[in-house]
């Protein structure tokens, strides 16, 4: 059986995008934003009614919209990405996440928790889940995922 791997994702330019409307952010950044909460479109996730997370290629720069009623913040170094890939990907996350992970469709992405640690979970394929986690929680989370993979 193919192995399930837990690896660090490549570095991203991460931007937190906040505004009352997605149109305001699209005008400033030129990005296309998903409209449905808890869904990803391209490399942008809609986390809430006024909040998006963009995971852009490392080094990408966005127009910050100075003076406009938008909040665009570079959070590249606040969190890291962890990729879980393989036939047991869902099972490893389900060990600590209270969502019904097996029923989450591909393209679904949401903020949630793993045990007591807040994460962003993005199902990129049937057997591939991308996790974003704040740096200080990452060593614990990696350890917990490793342990659930040998259980």
């Amino acid at each position, binding site marked *: 059986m193919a192995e399930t791997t837990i690896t660090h994702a490549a570095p991203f330019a991460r931007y937190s995008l906040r505004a009352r409307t997605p149109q305001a952010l699209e005008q400033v950044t030129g990005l296309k934003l998903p409209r449905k909460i808890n869904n990803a479109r391209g490399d942008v996730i809609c986390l809430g*009614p006024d909040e998006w997370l963009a995971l852009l290629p490392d080094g990408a720069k966005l127009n910050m919209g100075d003076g406009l009623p938008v909040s665009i913040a570079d959070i590249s170094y606040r969190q890291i990405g962890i990729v879980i890939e393989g036939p047991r990907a869902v099972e490893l996350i389900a060990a600590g996440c209270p*969502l019904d992970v097996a029923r989450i469709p591909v393209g679904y992405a949401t903020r*949630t928790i793993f045990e007591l640690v807040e994460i962003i979970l993005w199902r990129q394929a049937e057997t591939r889940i991308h996790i974003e986690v704040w740096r200080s929680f990452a060593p614990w989370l990696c350890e917990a995922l490793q342990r659930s993979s040998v259980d």
Partner: protein
Amino acid sequence: MFLIHCPYCDEKRPENEFAYAGEAHIARPADPSALDDKDWESYLYIRANPRGRHHERWRHIHGCGRFFNAVRDTVSDKFESTYKAGEPRK
């Protein structure tokens, strides 16, 4: 584990993604300096604390991040409904 319907995500989500935030529909006084101590005490500290149907605020803090309102029975602990902040009392 409870599942709570978040009116913004429009999904039932596990209770440990949520935080309780006290009684709902308590408006902050528009002109605080016009209040005497008694009114201020009542605004800050006095709550209905009913046995039964209770209107309360919740926040989907480990989810979409939004505050919303809920009607919950304090005896059975069952949620009757949830609705977006700013919508009229149910």
